[in-house]
């Protein structure tokens, strides 16, 4: 655990450094845009955040499919799915907020029924449902099965949403939202690319930690398993100890089964 900790610490520190550089370049070093003025600085965070949101949901879909596929089934995929979904939901919220601010600044409205905006909002709602479902199920196997099935169905729904919102927007929207800027300054391009690197590092760090948190929770539950079984048996002891002298043997005999149980949990 310690080696992986030092690795993730390095990842975290480099992510922080990259974000600091991004802020420095994005907020002061790079010049304002000819057309969009200072507002271009929002673009040094918003597109990268949105990409990380899609990456998170992509990881969730990947984890779910690999968990459902019998040959690759492993709790690791389920952990990856939950890590991707939760981090993706956070980035999705950030996307909606920054996008909304961009909309207010650039077009004068907080919200418009643009295809991408609508799709992102639907994605956010779907991810909240997915996470709520995960919280409602206790049994790890059922949780993994149900949530990966739901993730798969939701991924298919998102594909349909993509077409629906695109057609919907072309019906309703007649102004193009992203005007091509006539000239992109060299610094702007560099800063833009760097923001993807910085937020990518942040994203990776978050996913790794969320994954590890899930693993720790599983370990916590499986180690508590034996304690819980002993506690459960002790519930019956006051009655049985008086009536049955061999109860002690029952417990000893079943200790072996508890070990097997532990082995089984470890396997998982």
């Amino acid at each position, binding site marked *: 655990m310690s080696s992986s900790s030092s690795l993730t610490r390095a990842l975290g520190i480099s992510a922080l450094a990259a974000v600091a550089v991004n802020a420095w370049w994005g907020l002061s070093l790079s010049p304002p845009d000819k057309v969009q003025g200072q507002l271009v600085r929002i673009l040094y965070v918003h597109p990268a955040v949105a990409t990380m949101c899609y990456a998170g949901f992509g990881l969730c879909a990947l984890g779910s499919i690999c968990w459902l596929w019998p040959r690759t089934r492993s709790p690791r995929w389920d952990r990856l799915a939950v890590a991707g979904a939760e981090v993706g939901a956070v980035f999705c919220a950030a996307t909606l907020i920054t996008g909304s601010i961009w909309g207010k600044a650039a077009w004068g409205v907080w919200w418009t029924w643009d295809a991408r905006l609508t799709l992102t909002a*639907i994605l956010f*709602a*779907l991810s*909240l*449902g997915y996470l*709520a*479902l995960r919280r*409602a*199920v206790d*049994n790890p*196997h*059922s949780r993994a*099965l*149900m949530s990966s*099935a*739901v993730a*798969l*169905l*939701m991924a*298919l*729904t998102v594909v*349909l*949403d993509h*077409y*629906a*919102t695109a*057609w*919907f927007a072309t*019906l309703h929207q007649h102004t193009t939202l992203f005007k091509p800027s006539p000239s992109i300054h060299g610094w702007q391009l560099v800063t833009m690319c760097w923001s993807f690197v910085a937020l990518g590092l942040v994203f990776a760090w978050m996913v790794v930690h969320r994954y590890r948190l899930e693993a720790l929770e599983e370990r916590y539950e499986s180690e508590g398993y034996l304690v819980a079984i002993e506690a459960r048996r002790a519930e019956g002891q006051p009655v049985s100890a008086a009536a049955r002298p061999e109860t002690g043997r029952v417990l000893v005999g079943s200790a072996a089964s508890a070990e097997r149980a532990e082995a089984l949990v470890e396997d998982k």
Partner: protein
Amino acid sequence: MWRDAALVAGKDLRVEGRAKVAVNQVAPYALVVLLLFGFAFDQDRPLLVQAAPGLFWMAVLFSGLLAVQRSFSIESADGAIDALRLSRLEPAGIFIGKVVAVAAQLVVLEALLAFGVVVLFQSRLGGAGLLVASTLVSTAGVAAAGVAYGALCVGLRARETLLPLLLSPVLAPVVLAATEAWRAALGLSRGDGWRWLGILACFAAIYLAGGAIGFGALIEET
């Protein structure tokens, strides 16, 4: 499988025939929703006519949620879901049966709501072919997705609130596409309604197939 589906659908419809929950509670609720939409738009008639397809499908969405919840509350009220799990019925058959029962109730409800839209909002129905086709296909989609997620939630904590949270965003493409198809059919938009029918058909196909395959696993797990 079809025999099992017929058995389950028959049972669900027979229960509805006696309890009349859809007729006596869900249908009046849907009409009240329409009425409230009317109040909310403050008698702005042109706007209401424009918005009628969207309001209609929102009302269908709300009452569809209730129909799905009812469909699973008859199973969980007295533990009958265990009897279903222990039966020889094929899960795909149970799924199709419940979808058929929910869809049948929704179709009746939609007819009533369409009447309500005509009376309350003074919409003029037209484009019958597209209207009927899109309504039937989206009803199949709503019922299939509803029963799939209803089965998922049947044994869970806080299922009454979890189901709407899960199902509403999932039904977003149906509400969008069905509304646009209706708008095209009623001549309110220039769009090609049959293209929206394609999305509705894809949605229904995905959820009918996914539900039929996964239903066994979904009612298993609690």
